[in-house]
Structure formats: C-alpha cells, structure tokens
C-alpha cells in the first residue's frame, strides 16, 4: 500500500538529482557579459547564449507596429548591438540591467527572450514630486 509513496519519493529524488547535476550546473553561469564573449567567441559559436549587461542610454529604437526592438548592450567595456522581436518588459529602459537569450550572427546579437534585472534598491519617487508626477512615473513604470 505504501508503494505509491516510494514511487513518489523516487520521482522527487530524481528531480532533485536532475536539478542539481543538470539544471544547476547549467544555470550557475546564468549569463555572460559581452567582454567575456569576445574573449573567446569560438567557444560559443552557433550556440544559444544569455548575454547580460546594461542598456546603453540613447540607443533604444522600438517600433510597436513590427515589434522590432534594437538597442546597444554594454558591460562598460564592450558594446553589442542587439536585435530583438517582441514587446519589451515593462521595466525595460535606458541604463537598466538586462539579460538577452539568443544567438550571435556576425557582430549583431539576435535575441528571442529579454529579461529585465531589477536592482535590490527600493526607493519612493524623489521628494518634491507632485501627485500627478508620481502617477505619471508609476504609469511609465508599468
């Protein structure tokens, strides 16, 4: 009668084992920076990678009709032009930390999944803002 629990236990043990040896191993280096990529591009040739960095100010171009998003990703040293298709997440903006999943084709990185990294700092909008400005900020943040 207790057999089903042993089967369940086996499944859980298998899942934990898989997560530790398979999943965690892969996710430990969750993303690489552009500089790391260009140190050894051959290592990542043709592979799907996650590229992490900051969205360079003044480089965002987004066309809501075609959902084409272009921006420059930088780690402060190396810059990479990124082409992405899809609506950017709500918090996507200049100087924001992002992780893009995709592939390099030549010098351009083609992303198909865009994640925005949120900082650990939580602050209300600056002092002296009127309620209207706060509401506007919140609308923009959405």
């Amino acid at each position: 009668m207790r057999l089903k629990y042993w089967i369940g236990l086996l499944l859980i043990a298998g899942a934990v084992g898989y997560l530790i040896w398979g999943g965690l191993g892969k996710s430990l280096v969750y993303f690489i920076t552009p500089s790391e990529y260009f140190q050894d591009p051959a290592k990542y040739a043709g592979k799907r990678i996650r590229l992490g960095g900051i969205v360079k100010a003044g480089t965002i171009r987004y066309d809501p009709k075609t959902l084409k998003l272009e921006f420059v990703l930088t780690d402060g040293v190396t810059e990479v032009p990124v082409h992405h298709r899809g609506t950017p997440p709500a918090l996507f903006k200049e100087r924001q930390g992002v992780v893009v999943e995709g592939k390099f084709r030549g010098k351009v990185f083609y992303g198909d999944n865009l994640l925005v990294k949120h900082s650990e700092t939580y602050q209300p909008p600056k002092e002296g803002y009127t309620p209207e400005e706060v509401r506007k900020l919140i609308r923009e943040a959405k």
Partner: protein
Amino acid sequence: MLGWERMETARTRLDPVTVGLLALGFAVLLIGFYLALVAPPDQQQGYLVRILYLHVAAAWTGYLAFVVAGIYALFYLFTNRPAYDRVSAASAEIGLWLSLLMVLGGMMWARPTWGVYWVWEPRLTSVAVMIAVYVGYFLVRQAIEDPEMRAKAAAAVAILGVINIPITYMSVYWWRSIHQTASIDIINRKVHMAPAMLEALLVNLLAFTLIYLGFVRLKGYLAARQALKEGFDG
C-alpha cells in the same frame, strides 16, 4: 518503549500561549497589511513593490521553519522523544507552505518586472531544489509505517535539508543571477530600502514569525492528540 507514556500526559486543551501567538500574529498582520498599503510606491516598479512585503516575509520565515525542523530532528535523534519528531514535522510542513507562498508572490512579481514567471537561474533553481527536498520529506513520512523508523528517516532528511538554506540564501551572491541580492543585506550590512518600506517589511516579518510560531505549536498539539488516539487504538 515508543514514549506513549509521555504522550498520555499530552495536553488535551489548547494552551493559552498558542492561542495568544496566533491572535497577536494575526493582529500584527493586519497592521502590516495596512502599512504595506500606505507605503510609498517604488520609483521603478511602482505599486508592484508591495509584493515584497509578502514575498520576503514568507521567504525568511520559511527558512526559519526549515532550520527549526532540522534542530528538532537533531533533538529527536539524541533523545528519541516522539514530541521532538512531531515539532520537526510541524515546522517542516509550515516551512513548505511558506516557501510555496514565497514562490507564488515571486512569480506574480517576476512576470511584470523580469518578463517571465519562472526562469532556471541560480536562486530559483536552488529554491526549486529546496522545495523538492521538503516534498520528499513528507513522502518519506508517508512511505514508512513504523513510527520509530519513520521519525529517524524523516530526521535525517530534515537535518540534511538544512544545507539548502545557506545555498539558497547565498545563491544570489555566489553566482550570477537575475534575482536581485537582498535589500536588507546582512552580508554587507547595508539596507537598500526607504524607511517607510523597511518598516512595513519588518512589521510583516514579525507577523509572519508570530503566526509561524503559533502554527508550529498548533500542529504539534494536533499531532500529539492524534498520536495519543492512535496509541489507544493500537
């Protein structure tokens, strides 16, 4: 032999400490809820920041619950008193519910901020491992019929399971993660939160801790009643 003689002295009425902890906990939770609702919005994510008060409070008390489960498992192995096994199981169960609450809140927050509900990155993967281990803990308890064997096997899982807590907590520091590091940063002794937000978080944390303590006592009490009944039946 199995300590039934001790169980016969188990209280048959809920003690005032348990009732008091739960009543106080839920009262503080109401205050925490109010503070969370009047706390200012965050300059980046707006009102989404309010999920933090649930998410972080549930995460911390979840860790606490798993550590307590491990400590009482250790007590059990040293003394063989079934009461310690019952407290360990009660704490692990509440820890599991708190962890699921933490993940639920986190997913609600992750979708609008990161852009996805779930992603296999170090923090989330280590949380998944932690939750799977404690689901396994209850499967072990269900799979073994002999009470003493069950308690010993469960104690081993609960003690080994504690290793998950430092790994999960430190994952955002040890590895590159999309999950932000702690806003109340114990490692670097810094707080990255506005005072009003910090206050709301700490009050909610207190509420969750009180409710956790009350529920562990309540679960332990119910398990003692059940053991008493089964002892008479058998």
